[in-house]
């Protein structure tokens, strides 16, 4: 039989083989399966080939619990025997065997620690098996771990009491190993705790699933009166009474008594907070800074009084050199202000002025006060 023939054979009989793998004993098995030694007969009993089971377990990454947990009693017993022989014969070969034995036990502990950690993760995240199988596996692993926990204590004791004191080299090794065994033992307690929690949760889940299935069955045969009574009772305080609605529809119409409440407007405003409009910034006009000026004012009355007092021959010359004109800044303004005052004086006090024919200084007609 070629490899391909074997695969085809397995494929043709997959249902029978699958049932046998899951632990059932199929009643009708084709003789070719016996010829190919996929099934074996042990007396009257029919069993699936152990090699096949191992192969499938490996391929499906199923855990062989026996391989992980192993047995320590024999190895520990061997250590005690070697010690006895050594004490009798003083033959150092036994010391070497003891050292090797301690190392082997330690390596087993180490490998087992990581294996158990993986095993628990796998069973906690197992999705394809039924809860019954998962629970069964978990409980089995738990009992194995509890045994291991006491085995750890026993190993620790044997290392401390039996093996210590034989040679310095072994003593040093035992101290190192004991520290690690203690650590693995602590880990083991954590795994047990985790698995216990998982088993509890899975049992609850199983219970819950039974309830869900029972209630679903009642709904199907239209006999879910307890559920309906529960939903009807105190529904507003308990249940999701709001049906799904489509978007963009009127959501709700408040009752009259709600609208009449004093705070209604406040509450509505809180509920439907509006986005404030963007504030429009006023354009920033640039204004020139106003300069304050001291306004210089001519005291005409004082000028006139001085003219009357002084009786000048050249009126314009007098006005131009008067202190009141002297208040102004520039020559130009002085002349302009003086001319205005001159004109005013001449026009308003014509009777006191004598207008000469010729021009005085600054090309202005000579006027004398009289």
């Amino acid at each position, binding site marked *: 039989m070629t490899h391909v023939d074997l695969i085809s054979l397995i494929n043709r009989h997959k249902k029978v083989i699958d049932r046998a793998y899951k632990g059932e004993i199929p009643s009708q098995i084709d003789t070719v399966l016996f010829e190919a030694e996929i099934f074996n007969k042990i007396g009257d009993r029919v069993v699936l080939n152990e090699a096949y089971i191992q192969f499938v377990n490996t391929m499906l990454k199923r855990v062989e619990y026996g391989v992980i947990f192993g047995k320590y009693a024999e190895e520990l017993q061997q250590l005690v025997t070697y010690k006895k022989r050594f004490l009798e014969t003083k033959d150092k070969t036994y010391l070497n065997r003891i050292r090797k034995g301690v190392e082997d036990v330690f390596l087993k502990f180490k490998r087992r620690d990581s294996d158990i950690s993986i095993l628990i993760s796998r069973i906690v995240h197992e999705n394809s098996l039924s809860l019954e199988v998962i629970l069964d596996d978990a409980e089995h692993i738990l009992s194995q771990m509890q045994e291991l926990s006491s085995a750890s204590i026993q190993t620790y004791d044997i290392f401390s009491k039996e093996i210590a004191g034989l040679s310095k080299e072994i003593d040093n090794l035992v101290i190192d190993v004991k520290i690690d065994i203690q650590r693995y033992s602590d880990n083991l307690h954590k795994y047990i705790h985790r698995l216990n929690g998982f088993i509890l949760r899975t049992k609850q889940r199983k219970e819950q*699933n039974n309830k869900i299935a029972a209630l679903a069955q009642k709904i199907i045969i239209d006999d879910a009166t307890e559920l309906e009574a529960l939903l009807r009772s105190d529904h507003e305080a308990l249940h999701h009474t709001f049906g799904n609605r489509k978007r963009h529809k009127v959501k709700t119409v408040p009752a009259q008594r709600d609208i009449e409440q004093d705070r209604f407007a406040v509450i509505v405003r809180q509920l439907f907070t509006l986005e404030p409009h963007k504030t429009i910034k006023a354009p920033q006009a640039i204004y020139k800074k106003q300069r304050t000026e001291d306004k210089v004012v001519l005291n005409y009355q004082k000028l006139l009084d001085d003219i009357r007092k002084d009786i000048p021959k050249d009126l314009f010359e007098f006005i131009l050199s008067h202190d009141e004109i002297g208040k102004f800044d520039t020559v130009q303004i002085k002349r302009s202000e003086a001319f205005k005052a001159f004109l005013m004086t001449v026009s308003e006090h014509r009777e006191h002025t004598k207008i000469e024919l010729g021009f005085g200084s600054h090309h202005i007609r000579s006027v004398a006060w009289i």
Partner: protein
Amino acid sequence: MDIASVFEVLSQGKIISSNSKKYSDYTRHLMDEEIFDEFYAAASTLGYILHGEGGYFYLSKKGQMSKDEMEAYISKHKDAILAISILRQLRPQLDRGSIIVYTDLIHEYKMQEREDSSIQNRLNILVSGKGNVDLKSAFDALFERLKKFDLIESVGDNDQDRYKVLDAIDYYIKIIEVSEPNSKESK
């Protein structure tokens, strides 16, 4: 985020879950106790009760429901329970936060359907009204229902295969636990 936006969503009759990616902003907002109380008071005055427990939030309506409303409300709860019963049969370990894969569930369904016809009954009742439909259409309808009940949410933006189970599943599980006293066949 503000109360108005949360009200907008909840008033559509949604149950929003804390582990929902889509509504995480809303649930974070409501987890602030002060905001929750403020919203509770405002909703209460408008005739609603705001519920927030176990990681999910929803509104219920004060006062009596009309006959139609009551029927719709009870039938919705029954449908959700049937949908959950299908999920739990296909994935016994399923819980809030679990990831379910559409194609895997169809595969599992086909395996179980042969041995247990009740699952087919439940699926048919759920998708009745769609006429005689093929398995894919039936599962599409089932997933649509689950989404509508706010029980699952697509994991990726374009992923039509993987969905996350939302916290709101606990709302229905609680009702089931109360409605069904401890079953006799528990081991």
